[in-house]
């Protein structure tokens, strides 16, 4: 299982996904995972991620391939939720398997920076007064620039 890239419109079972990923990469010395969740911030009641079918998943697949080659990965898992999520729910799960731990860490960090600032996803939050689109953050652009 070299690259496992998915867009999911339902909740994901993190424990099962990581257990399967780990056992699929028995020979990898190191496995890093990142799980991003909806933070219960202030009055945010829900979060919605919309995507564009012809672009979003293909670009995520390209990103995973680039990460695999750049960091000599044995494999990578990139799962991203779309649709409506509530606080505490998983938004994104990334896992990387490599011979050496520094590569696994670097690849997970790289994947997350690019997913956050370059994936074809648009986010809005529902607060007490309705839905609000989220603008790109300057921090995200700085994060991605680290890899240039």
């Amino acid at each position, binding site marked *: 299982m070299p690259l496992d890239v998915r867009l999911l419109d339902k909740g994901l079972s993190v424990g099962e996904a990581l257990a399967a990923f780990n056992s699929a990469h028995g020979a990898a010395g190191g496995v890093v995972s990142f799980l991003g969740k909806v933070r219960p911030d202030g009055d945010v009641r829900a979060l919605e991620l919309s995507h564009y079918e012809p*672009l979003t998943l293909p670009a995520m697949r390209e990103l995973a391939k680039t990460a695999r080659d750049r960091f000599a990965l044995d494999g990578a898992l990139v799962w991203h939720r779309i649709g409506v999520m509530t606080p505490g729910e998983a938004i994104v799960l990334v896992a990387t398997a490599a011979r050496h731990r520094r590569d696994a860490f670097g690849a997970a960090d790289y994947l997350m920076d690019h*997913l*956050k600032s*370059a994936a074809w*996803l648009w986010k809005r939050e529902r607060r007490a007064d309705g839905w609000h*689109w989220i603008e*790109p953050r300057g921090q995200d652009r700085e994060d991605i620039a680290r890899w240039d």
Partner: protein
Amino acid sequence: MAVTILFLGPLRDLAGQQTMEVEAPLNWSGLLEAVRPEVAGQLGEQRVNVACAGKVLADKTELQAEDGDEVALLPPVSGG
């Protein structure tokens, strides 16, 4: 057949609709005329991209959409 214009993310609210159909062919100036002025204003911004038939255009002003093509207007992404 026609060209379908698809409004993504916040552009959907600005357009007041998710999709619209216009006659083919459609080029850049035709696109700017077809959409509301607020959307046309956004399209002028560098960080707003345009995809045609599933490909992001390197230069959106060279848009040449044919019968059956979908033209997607892509505002800046806000990530996961």
